[in-house]
């Protein structure tokens, strides 16, 4: 059952389901990280997964991006059941991600880092590239253009040629977003994009996330534990606690959900 297209208050179009998680259970030995969770992600929406520390949010993101393989449950992507895949195969299917602890190529420049994001789009064979002629050259130019556009969009032109290792934390996060965006993903996964940022940087990052979604219509799934930020950003929110789903809905629905309030504020045991 696919929900009808809906138009949000600010005029963005939310389409059908692109990804659906069905009864996902993930165990590490005896520890259950995710317990029987189901939810879906719809085309063009900003979908947040929130929860206290250790709730299993990052594990869920790692399941989507193929870094972890759940023992039970199914992942459906673009209407098809996805067989167990390696992370690079998931990336080639158009699911790009960022990492909580930033995984950039520190020794490479910002431009080169973002160019690696185009890996999926570049088709020229090994031999054509080895001799660097014809189609490979044209392809490099075309992809370079796309990358420059993204660099402009995220306002990191001034550091294009800087090795990433020299950048401050906030900018690294933005470069990582740029690299993920360069893949023109059908789903963009952001693992705590605001973690460790000051208020100003958080505002910048929120603006970029909204702009990306608005401008390119990119479907975004993000993890965050800062409730305030998430409520302002997202269309729908999944709330996790101790590996279980305790809430799912619009920010307003989630905000008034008693289980969610208990999980975040603690509950008196008497």
């Amino acid at each position: 059952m696919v929900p009808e297209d809906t138009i949000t208050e600010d005029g963005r179009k939310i389409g059908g389901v692109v990804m659906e998680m069905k009864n996902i259970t993930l165990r590490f030995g005896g520890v259950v990280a995710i317990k029987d969770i189901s939810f879906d992600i719809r085309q063009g929406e900003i979908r947040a997964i929130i929860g206290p520390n250790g709730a299993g949010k990052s594990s869920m993101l790692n399941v989507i991006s193929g870094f972890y393989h759940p023992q039970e449950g199914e992942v459906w992507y673009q209407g098809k059941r996805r067989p167990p895949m390696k992370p690079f195969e998931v990336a080639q299917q158009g699911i790009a991600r960022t990492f909580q602890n930033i995984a950039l190529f520190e020794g490479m420049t910002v431009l080169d880092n973002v160019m690696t994001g185009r890996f999926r789009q570049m088709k020229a064979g090994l031999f054509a590239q080895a001799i660097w002629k014809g189609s490979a050259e044209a392809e490099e130019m075309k992809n370079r253009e796309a990358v420059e556009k993204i660099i402009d969009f995220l306002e990191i032109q001034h550091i294009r040629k800087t090795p990433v290792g020299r950048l401050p934390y906030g900018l690294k996060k933005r470069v990582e977003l740029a690299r993920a965006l360069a893949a023109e993903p059908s789903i963009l996964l952001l693992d705590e994009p605001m973690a460790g940022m000051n208020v100003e940087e958080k505002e910048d990052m929120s603006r970029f996330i909204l702009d990306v979604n608005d401008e390119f219509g990119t479907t975004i799934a993000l993890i965050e534990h800062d409730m305030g930020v998430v409520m302002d950003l997202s269309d729908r929110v999944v709330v996790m606690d101790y590996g279980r789903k305790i809430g799912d809905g619009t920010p307003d629905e989630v905000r008034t959900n008693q289980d969610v309030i208990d999980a975040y504020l603690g509950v008196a045991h008497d």
Partner: protein
Amino acid sequence: MPDQLLFGMEVVLNGLMAGVLYALVALGFVLIYKASGIFNYAQGVMALFAAMTLVGIMEGNVPFSHLINAVFGTQVHHFGWQVPGIAAVALTMIVMVALAWVVNQLIFRHLVNQAPIILFMATIGLAYFLEGFGDVMWGSDIKKLDVGLPQGLNTVIDDLTYGLFGYGFFIDNLDIVATVVAALLVGSLVVFAQYSKQGRAMRAVADDHQAALSVGVSLNFIWVMVWSLAGFVALVAGIMWGTKSGVQFSLSLIALKALPVLMLGGFTSIPGAIVGGLIIGVGEKLFEFSVGTMVGGATENWFAYVLALIFLVFRPQGLFGEKIIERV
């Protein structure tokens, strides 16, 4: 011009060309180290193995003939054909790619995220295995390699310099060829690593496995590619050294000469391997020429290592090595 100066110039020229050959071997180390953090002790043996395979294919020898004859009591040695140089080089390259694939599949794929010392030990194991394997496959006798590269005194340079200075420079044709080939090889490798999709992926894998996976790079593919490239460089080095001094066990020891080159140039830099090789090549020839005679010669054996030690003290990352940036 004084004789001493002319002779010195000739020494420098010869040193430059010897340096290019060192650089060729060092290049193989750099490639693998850059992309997988593995210090490949087997690089020298790979050059030996490539040269042996090349000779074996050219002469139409039956691989494993000793083993086959011993087991089945047959007397096969030759297929009875000769393969021309170019075709044999191509066939050898296919063997080297296959070797790269097998090495990755059987060894290094299973050692991902292991400590560098473990990876290093694995390459030592690989080196000794490959050495024995090469002997069983092609026999351990000293072989002559001739793929048709020009050899001997370059008469043009000899005549030219004789006409100019009244003193003919002795430059070996093979050295000239090696220089040109090495220059082309390095140039194309730099461009490949810097500006192509796979080259970028290679650097990406070297930098961060997780991040590389997340942009869709297959680690296995890149590793096989890098080992194949190292195999290719080993083949080129094997051809040059094999033509120069015959295909024999000592060929694998040229790898030891590459160590000081790497310390000078930096383990992570392709141009560094070249400049390091040239400095060592020229340095040891000049040192032998100027100081060696005073101390009884044979300085070429240790000069490179002492130079490398001095470098280690003052610039541990080498001339071109990536600066170690650490944010706290």
